[in-house]
């Protein structure tokens, strides 16, 4: 039972998908499917609420086949909540967007729910098989969603592109996972990490190739340069609520997993020493993502493409945060995730979903073109949407007092604190980049308020659901921007659990007692205890055998 409670946020998302599927079927072919969006949103928010309720302390997982495969702690809860919010917002945006776009099929909603479910599974998984399962559930649903406007060649193109490149990325991920398995004989992060950090495998070629492969695969999901090419095309071509989903949910999930995997598996003290270290690669990607994202953003004329390049540059800032590992609590052992990263993701997701959401509400009567010209004069046609778009975009640009400013402030501060002597260069680069980015963000505001449309203006959809979703985002951006305390606290707590503890010192007490008087032959292979994750004693032999495969010479020799 406790397993079901611990797993309930993720389960709720899946159940939501099933319920929506059934409702879609039962409601008949010719009904308006908008209510399914509300059901999806409520279900996903229930899932987010469950995650918040589970916030206090990690939950124990006792089912044998789940041990070491999932970890539900503050880190998971933080991202599950964030994903749930973004997923719910996207499904509300679909409610009136789809009929206007000529999509009357209710299949969109269960797909959104399943994609969200996949993202959640992706985030809480600590085992590469389960991780891959989550990744694919999320991705497959999204391939279909990207192509869900069947009458539009752009949507089809987006779907196919995303699918082809996504399959490539998944392939790389599998390669990486396989190499890691080859190097360590295990699939769960903790064992893999321990093996790699303990033994000669640390410097082995397999581990390094695996590192690059996994960075490439996850870099695809988070749209980091040079794995980003799909982003503008797919964001532009997909139905806009789906773009919102991709920019919000997929990126948050991708980063959550990237940070946890990187730091758990390769997270030694030398994580970010030198260019060839794991952190060094992230740093390279961070800098080129920022620069490429912002420079390309400048020359775009389509708002969705601008936001796509903006999301690439944001990936750069966040990667910088992952590169600069946190200082951890005073006296704590090991490294921790830079606590600015979860907070920054929060700020980014809310603002970007808000911005895409407003664009989604401008897709009336099948209108697809989101060029700057077509949103011109929005300030006069719909002051409220214009205001929300402005708030979102300015938050992305990092203008105080909006949330985006706090996000950048906290992140850059933490990056600087992690290593003041060297990191100031990167902070300066990032700040300069945000200045460049201001150009295209303000360009959107300029068109919204000070230009008249020359061609056809994008028709505005009257949508209570969508307006509710985007205004919630905007209010959160404003409110949390002024009172960020609680959100920063939550991010700090989340970041403390990002790195799964792999140290031997925290062995389970029962095992320790045995070892104290007379060391038994098998004793060196003590099991570490993961935060909030207890190992069922009856399964120790199984896990131990798995570890033995690669660990024969790592601990003290048995007598």
């Amino acid at each position: 039972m406790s397993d079901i409670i611990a797993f309930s946020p993720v389960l709720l998302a899946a159940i939501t998908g099933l319920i929506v599927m059934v409702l879609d079927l039962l409601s008949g072919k010719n009904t308006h499917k908008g209510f399914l969006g509300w059901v999806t949103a409520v279900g996903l928010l229930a899932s987010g609420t469950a995650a918040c309720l589970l916030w206090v302390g990690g939950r124990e997982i006792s089912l044998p086949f789940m041990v070491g495969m999932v970890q539900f702690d503050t880190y998971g809860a933080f991202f599950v909540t964030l994903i749930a919010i973004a997923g719910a917002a996207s499904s509300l945006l679909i409610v009136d967007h789809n009929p206007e776009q000529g999509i009357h099929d209710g299949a969109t909603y269960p797909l959104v729910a399943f994609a969200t479910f996949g993202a959640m599974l992706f985030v809480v998984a600590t085992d590469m098989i389960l991780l891959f399962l989550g990744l694919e559930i999320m991705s497959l649903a999204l391939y279909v969603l990207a192509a869900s406007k069947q009458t539009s060649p752009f949507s089809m193109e987006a779907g196919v592109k995303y699918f082809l490149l996504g399959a490539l990325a998944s392939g790389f991920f599998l390669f990486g996972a396989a190499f890691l398995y080859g190097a360590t004989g295990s699939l769960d992060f903790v064992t893999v990490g321990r093996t790699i950090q303990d033994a000669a495998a640390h410097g082995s070629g397999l581990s390094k190739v695996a590192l690059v492969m996994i960075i490439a695969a996850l870099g695809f999901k988070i749209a980091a340069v040079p794995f980003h090419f799909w982003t503008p095309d797919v964001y532009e071509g997909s139905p806009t609520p789906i773009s919102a989903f991709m920019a919000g949910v997929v990126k948050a999930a991708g980063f959550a997993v990237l940070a946890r995997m990187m730091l758990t598996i390769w997270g030694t003290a030398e994580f970010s020493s030198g260019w060839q270290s794991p952190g060094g690669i992230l740093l390279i990607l961070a800098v080129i993502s920022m620069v490429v994202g912002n420079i390309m953003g400048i020359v775009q004329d389509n708002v969705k493409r601008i936001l796509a390049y903006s999301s690439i540059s944001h990936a750069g800032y966040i990667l910088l945060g992952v590169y600069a590992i946190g200082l951890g609590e005073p006296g704590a052992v090991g490294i921790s995730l830079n606590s600015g990263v979860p907070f920054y993701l929060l700020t980014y997701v809310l603002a970007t979903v808000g911005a895409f959401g407003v664009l989604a509400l401008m897709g009336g009567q099948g209108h697809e073109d989101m060029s700057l010209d077509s949103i011109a004069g929005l300030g006069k046609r719909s002051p409220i949407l214009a205001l929300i778009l402005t708030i979102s975009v300015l938050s992305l640009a990092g203008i105080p007092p909006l949330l985006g400013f706090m996000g950048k402030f906290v992140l850059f501060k933490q990056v600087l604190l992690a290593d003041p002597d060297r990191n100031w260069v990167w902070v300066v680069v990032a700040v300069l980049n945000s200045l460049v980015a201001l150009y295209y963000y303000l360009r959107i505001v300029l068109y919204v308020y000070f230009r008249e449309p020359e061609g056809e203006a994008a028709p505005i959809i009257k949508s209570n659901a969508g307006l509710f979703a985007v205004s919630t985002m905007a209010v959160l951006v404003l409110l949390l921007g002024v009172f960020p305390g609680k959100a920063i606290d939550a991010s700090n707590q989340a970041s403390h659990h990002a790195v799964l503890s792999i140290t031997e010192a925290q062995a389970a007490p029962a095992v320790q007692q045995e070892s104290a008087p007379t060391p038994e032959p098998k004793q060196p292979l003590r099991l570490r205890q993961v935060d909030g994750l207890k190992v069922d004693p009856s399964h120790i032999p199984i896990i131990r055998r798995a570890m033995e495969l690669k660990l024969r010479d790592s601990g003290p020799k048995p007598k």
Partner: protein
Amino acid sequence: MGSEFLPYVAIIITIVVAVGIALAILVLNAVLGPKRPSEAKMGPFECGSDVVDTPRKRINVRFYAVAIFFVVFDIEALFLIPIAVAYRDLLQPQHLGVFALFALLLFIGVLAIGLWYVWGKGALDWAFDALTSSAARSDANE
């Protein structure tokens, strides 16, 4: 030859036997079978489509849909077989107990809902009424 290779001996034997049987069938067929060749018979076997045709021709999308559904339920069967084999053990209290039954039912249940959905959406109808009618409806709206 070390003892660690012993398990592979069985595999090698299996391979040899399998290949041998296949070869034997082909050879026996060639030797014993009557031969009355026709154009259709001489062509390679492919389900439903002409062998020599323009490569630009579109293949009916129904093939893919059916293939995908097939894969899903094929994999269901694939999962059920090992569970069935180990089911008696799994039911023991020291393993999963009754939970094994629930897990199994859950798995089948989810797929059943999927089947129901696919069916209800008309995806199993060879004529694809659902798809054509929804396309017709969106045409009517434009």
